[in-house]
């Protein structure tokens, strides 16, 4: 029985390592590292993660999706189907989907007029995006209202004292 449990544990651990092989932190490179080491990384297959920002820009059967990983932002050229799988894009009211993209890094892409970009082979939504809650502090509202009252009072004085003269 103990033998079976040990074997099962070993199998489980080895399976875990196999499945997670593609998302080891060491394999994911920061966008800024790509910019800093563009010459060395040019033409290599890289894996990057980042938040999808703005919107997908459709160009025929492909689309541009810009991602920001906190160190920098970069355009990912991906098939339209992949772009359509992204549900939420980051803006003032949203935290966008966190993507993991694997593809070829181009220091000066010949297809896209010398763009620094990544042509993706695969896209995975690692974390789904969500709407950002916006709460206005009460103190800000009170402060704003007091100032508006003061400005209005001064405006009345200005109109009566200066303009009437």
């Amino acid at each position: 029985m103990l033998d079976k449990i040990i074997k099962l544990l070993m199998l489980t651990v080895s399976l875990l390592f196999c499945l997670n092989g593609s998302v080891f932190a060491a394999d994911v490179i920061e966008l800024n590292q790509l910019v800093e080491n563009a010459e060395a990384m040019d033409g290599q297959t890289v894996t990057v993660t980042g938040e999808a920002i703005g919107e997908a820009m459709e160009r025929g059967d492909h689309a541009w999706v810009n991602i920001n990983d906190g160190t920098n932002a970069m355009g990912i050229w991906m098939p339209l189907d992949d772009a359509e799988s992204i549900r939420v894009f980051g803006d003032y009211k949203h935290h966008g989907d966190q993507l993991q993209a694997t593809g070829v890094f181009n220091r000066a892409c010949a297809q896209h007029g010398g763009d620094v970009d990544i042509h993706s082979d695969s896209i995975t939504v690692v974390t789904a995006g969500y709407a950002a809650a916006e709460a206005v502090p009460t103190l800000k509202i009170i402060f704003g209202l007091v100032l508006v009252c003061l400005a209005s009072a001064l405006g009345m004085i200005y109109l009566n004292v200066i303009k009437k003269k």
Partner: protein
Amino acid sequence: MNTFNGRFYSIFIISYYTGYVVLGIALLMVLPILTAVGLQEWNPFWDFIITMAISIILGLLLIIIGKQTRHNKSFVQWKHGFVVASLSWIILMFLCAIPYLLSGHVNSILDACFDVMSGFTTTGMVLTQDLDHISLSLNLWRHMLTFIGGQGMIVLALTFLLKETGGAYIFYVGEAKDIDLVPNVKGTARIIWKISMVYLVIGTVALWIDGLAIGLTPLSAFFNGLFIFASSWSTGGFAPYTQNMMYYHSFSYENLTIIFFILGSLNFGLHYAILSGNKKELLKNIETQSFFISSFLASILAVMWLARTGVYHDAIAMFRRVVYNVLSAHTTTGFGSVYARQFALEWGDFGILILVIVMLIGGSACSTAGGFKGLRVGIIGNSILADVKRLLASERNVKVFRFHHIKDQILSDGLVKAAALIIICYLITFAIGTLIGTYYGYPLASAAFEAASITGNVGLSIGITAPGMPAVMKVYYIIAMYLGRLEFLSVFALIGFIIGGIKKCWTK
């Protein structure tokens, strides 16, 4: 009727006009407020309400303090125009920084002031963080500041808020916009704003349509079109996203911005002459001649240099990544189609030097562009040629040299001296900026690049300008942007006025 008493009447005059400028900018905050309401961005809504209320209170207080000026407008002198312009810019820098600060997207009031001054001066350097998540209303405010700064905000406020603007030319010159398109300043200011607004409509529509074609949604295409036009025309360089022009991945979008930022960098007098039917002015004008010659030479040299490095393989890539940045630098726009660090890593010392030179030269006088201006370069170049001709000519032969700028003008020694003085002031500001950069450990080429970009109100960065850079550099860069935009004289007048005031108090 003279009602001024005492020695300090200048303070009342300055207070009165500065109050109107502050009030004018306060009223402009209605636009981001309406945008915030329309898009239900409630935090920015309150941020702008607070800022507008503070600005109105301060503006009205200044007007009330200087109310005697209403009956003593004949006392307004040149020095008042210069001081109002330079002082208003400082006050507005603090007031307009409030929405940035309240948004939580800047680290400090210093960073907020830096971004506002960058906007006003149409520089386009950014310390605001996480641009991809800022509200549309704050983005509108950023681009409004750069648009208004480019056309001249003092004149805008005074021309439209005051009924009598007989002496308004004084304020005009104070903001480095000394041009008289028609005999009165009100008419000139209105023409400048009319030209800008016509282009604003055309430019926004053009970029909107192109935005739809490149895959933006209709609302996003509209706001992006509006923002990018405002930045292009005012040669500002702000963009709504972190990647600046690289966000759009579009040749057509970049080409449209080239058209608008070149148009924006041309003298308003030239626009007026062409719109009035005098199309030959475009070819005869000393500024357009110097701009096209220097742009062509700089682009050719940069392309030849970068072709050697082998980074870019075809003509389109060369145009989009090299010529675009050279033109953006020369017109002092600051839109970037490469990452800031690529200048340091790929352009090499020669490429950086080319950009430094064109950034310092800048665009045309009385345009939205910065730098020491093509007109002054043309005047100095012509004066050197004239001196050589004088040396070679007979001593008995007295010749008058001329140049063409809107009309034929005599190349007088006074004009040459004035042009040379301003160029020297720019070079000193640039040298100090480079010195400070190297003191803080940045490489010479990078420090010079950033200092040239700041002094010329350009906005391209090599990676130095960042929230983490030393506070001393941020303060110096604010001063350099301010000096560069107001072309020194107004700021010197303000310093002189303050020192004079202190002396008066001391001797009393």
